[in-house]
């Protein structure tokens, strides 16, 4: 058998973005020996791309704000599907997590009184997002990173990718991983495992996500037997760049709208006034006049419709384009130039200023930007318990974007940075406790051997046995007919096809027919995966890495599409043209994607029952 290194630890944290780092710090504070595995270099994870801010009801800018209103906004934004326990813990704890970052050296923008400043954002009743210009994520990841590397019992493994969770019975006991730089293998033996691997955006062509976001955690958990939840809900951020083609999808922060930016169509109309849903009508301005008085800071003024939740704004832009009122390159105009002074724009939105200047030769202090929806965030993920972040597999925990429940059908901007801090900490603590309370089990040699075979399979030219990606314990399929060398598939080509399928069959608007077609095409594509061949050696070989990532992307794409097919209604980020309205019965359930001996199944699970007192509060028209 292939040689491998063995690393023993109490808690294995897979992923070193905000959630993974926060989890590692928490586990380490509880005395656990932590192995922190990062697919990229430390500090490069997608958390650095979070621009606008971290949501926390500090009440620094508007003292009427409190956790209860944050909780209400989150539930309403989720279109009632969020796990209320998670939303409550999140709203209560996020101010503490933000203040703690400040004690660790983070430097947020200040109010005139010298407190942490907070900005407006979509779906948040009051200015709530603590921020640093438009590079909040960088500030947070750097603060966590510098804090973590000085803790003695955290060891960081950079550019190391986990390819399999190792189990003993129903318990996660470690993982197999490979080092990108050398291609060598490493087995982590752990008391417990935390998945903090981020999202799935790379399954789509137009995306703000980087190469890392291939649904690794989602697929690793699924293959380990864990339930996934809310997989039909993918957030399409309303404002990605649309021009030039090479940067299509690159994020334009919601902070542009938070700081007064407006959306205009090709006829010069501020169209968002035409798209205000009933549920938000009482809290949204109805006319430009009203919206402008909000920008001028008038007490009690209604919020402009550009700050409606992301699902609403993304759909509105799509509709404008479809009805022929789009910008020249198929988007809408986002105008801050006529709303704020050039100085203000450069100070509050410096990276947006540079991004457009350098990539689109456009000065945002003088001209409007062109923007359109881009795949941004996965609401769905590993089903976890609110108080422990535990998945349905023993010893397996999840936090951050890879976990789910917190955001339901739609996430509010700013709630992901707070989510990863709050639940990163909880996951770290609980995983450390679990590792201390349960004696360690070493992974079985046979299991390790199977995982190694899978990881190295793309190099094999003679492959008598193939893995079946859909279910871990499923039979391995024999496919002698596939291994002719001339039938080798190029993983980059497969990836392109996958992105095309997801874009056209499971994109921002869906129908049952399209979803079925998409699922069929995904199943056909899945059959071709074993034919992928990695050319070249093991050392830093992106072709090989992509072969393995594609297995994860296929699993998540199938889970997503199958859950979307079952939800025969439109809610939040999930829009069905064949079922354009809410279905009250479906509004009472989450979709669970479950692995089983017969393959993947989708089951409906009733929402957790919210206490009456909180429910009444959420339902009130205005607070």
């Amino acid at each position, binding site marked *: 058998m292939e040689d491998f290194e063995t690393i023993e630890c109490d808690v294995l944290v897979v992923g070193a973005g905000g959630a993974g780092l926060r989890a590692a710090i928490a586990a380490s504070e509880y005395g656990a020996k932590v192995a922190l595995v990062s697919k990229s270099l430390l500090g490069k994870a*997608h958390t650095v791309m979070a621009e606008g801010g971290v949501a926390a009801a500090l009440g620094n800018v508007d003292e009427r704000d409190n956790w209860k209103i944050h909780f209400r906004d989150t539930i309403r934004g989720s279109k009632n599907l969020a796990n209320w326990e998670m939303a409550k813990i999140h709203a209560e704890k996020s101010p503490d997590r933000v203040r703690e970052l400040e004690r660790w050296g983070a430097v947020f923008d200040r109010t005139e009184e010298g407190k942490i400043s907070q900005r407006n954002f979509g779906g948040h009743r009051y200015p709530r997002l603590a921020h640093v210009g438009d590079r909040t994520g960088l500030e947070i990841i750097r603060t966590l990173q510098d804090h973590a590397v000085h803790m003695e019992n955290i060891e960081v493994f950079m550019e190391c990718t986990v390819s399999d969770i190792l189990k003993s019975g129903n318990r996660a006991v470690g993982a197999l991983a490979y080092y990108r730089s050398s291609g060598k293998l490493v087995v982590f033996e752990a008391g417990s495992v935390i998945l903090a691997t981020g999202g799935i955006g790379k399954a789509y062509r137009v995306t703000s996500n980087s190469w890392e976001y291939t649904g690794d955690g989602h697929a690793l958990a699924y293959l380990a037997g864990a339930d996934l939840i809310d997989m039909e809900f993918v957030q399409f951020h309303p404002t990605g760049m649309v021009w030039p083609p090479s940067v299509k999808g690159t994020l334009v922060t919601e902070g542009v709208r938070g700081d007064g930016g407006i959306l205009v169509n090709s006829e010069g109309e501020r169209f968002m006034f035409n798209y205000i849903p009933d549920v938000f009508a009482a809290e949204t301005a109805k006319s430009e006049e009203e919206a402008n008085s909000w920008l001028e800071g008038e007490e009690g003024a209604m919020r402009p419709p550009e700050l409606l939740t992301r699902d609403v704004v993304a759909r509105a832009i799509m509709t404008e384009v479809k009805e022929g009122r789009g910008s020249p390159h198929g988007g809408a105009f986002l105008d801050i130039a006529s709303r704020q002074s050039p100085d203000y724009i450069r100070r509050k939105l410096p990276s947006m200023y540079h991004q457009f200047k350098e990539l689109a030769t456009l000065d945002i202090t003088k001209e409007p930007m062109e923007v359109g929806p881009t795949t941004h965030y996965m609401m769905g993920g590993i089903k976890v318990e609110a108080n422990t972040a535990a998945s349905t597999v023993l010893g397996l925990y999840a936090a951050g974007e890879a976990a789910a429940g917190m955001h339901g059908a739609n996430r509010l901007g700013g709630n992901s940075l707070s989510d990863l801090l709050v639940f990163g900490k909880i996951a770290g603590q609980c995983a450390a406790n679990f590792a201390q309370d349960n004696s360690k089990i070493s992974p079985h040699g046979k299991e390790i051997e199977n995982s190694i075979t899978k990881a190295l399979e793309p190099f094999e030219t003679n492959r008598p046995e193939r893995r079946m990606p859909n279910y871990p314990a499923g039979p391995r399929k024999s496919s002698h007919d596939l291994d002719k060398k001339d039938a080798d598939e190029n993983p980059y080509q497969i990836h392109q096809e996958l992105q095309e399928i997801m874009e056209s069959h499971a994109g921002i608007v869906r129908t049952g027919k399209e979803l079925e077609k998409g699922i069929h095409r995904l199943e056909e594509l899945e059959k071709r995966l074993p034919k992928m061949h990695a050319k070249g050696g093991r050392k830093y070989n992106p072709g090989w890495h992509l072969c393995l990532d594609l297995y994860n992307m296929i699993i998540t794409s199938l889970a997503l599409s199958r859950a979307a097919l079952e939800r025969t209604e439109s809610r939040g980020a999930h829009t069905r043209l064949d079922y354009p309205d809410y279905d009250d019965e479906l509004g009472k359930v989450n979709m669970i994607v479950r692995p089983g001996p017969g393959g993947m199944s989708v089951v409906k699970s009733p929402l957790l029952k919210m206490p009456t007192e909180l429910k009444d509060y959420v339902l009130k028209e205005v607070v």
Partner: protein
Amino acid sequence: MKRKIRLQRGEPDNLRLDEFKIEVEQGMVVLDAIHLIQATEAPDLAVRWNCKAGKCGSCSAEVNGEPKLTCMTRLSDYPEDQTLTVQPMKTFPLIKDLVNDVSWNYEVNKQITPYQHTEGTGDPIMFQGEVDRVQEFRKCIECFLCQDVCHVLRSHDMKDEFAGPRFMIRTAGLEMHPLDQGERVEHLRDEHGIGLCNITKCCTYACPEHIEITDNAIIPMKERVVDEYYDPLKWMWNMVTGK
């Protein structure tokens, strides 16, 4: 439109420049060209990247010998008939193709005394004017291009004696933080060798975040070292008090 691009490939004992012809799309950046080559002609081509928006600092390389983030460098910045050459950074050991081993930087960072908070009652109060400078340094995306062009590191390979500009601004960001209580000046003088910088400003010119590394961080830090160790009054006082 087609254009030619040359990429350095291979490992330290076996280097070569491979030439590719690619179809150029409007607005294309150097990293797009590399990805296109990877997807069609060289699947095992090693390149490091993440955000593709100038925010993570992963895709640093030398384009026609100049330090660049390949995701923010447009092909149209160079004449169409010119063959572009992309090579990895010279200052750090090479792993393969365009990927460097930058782990030394992470080791240096660990040696810097972390932030030490001034505990007080209530929420910390800091004014924007007090933190502007610190925020400038904290914009750093750790692309390590400043390290790459610093001649102390690049030409003289004095990594054991000099921390490099990245860690001068990291230290300055901590030292100038209004609520930090850490002591780093001695370390900056000794282990991190701030005296070796002779302010040629190459780092400042290379910085994609436009941080005034030399003027705003290195020079003020040099002054702190001088104040601490070469102030004649302080020196005499230390002699008298036996410190």
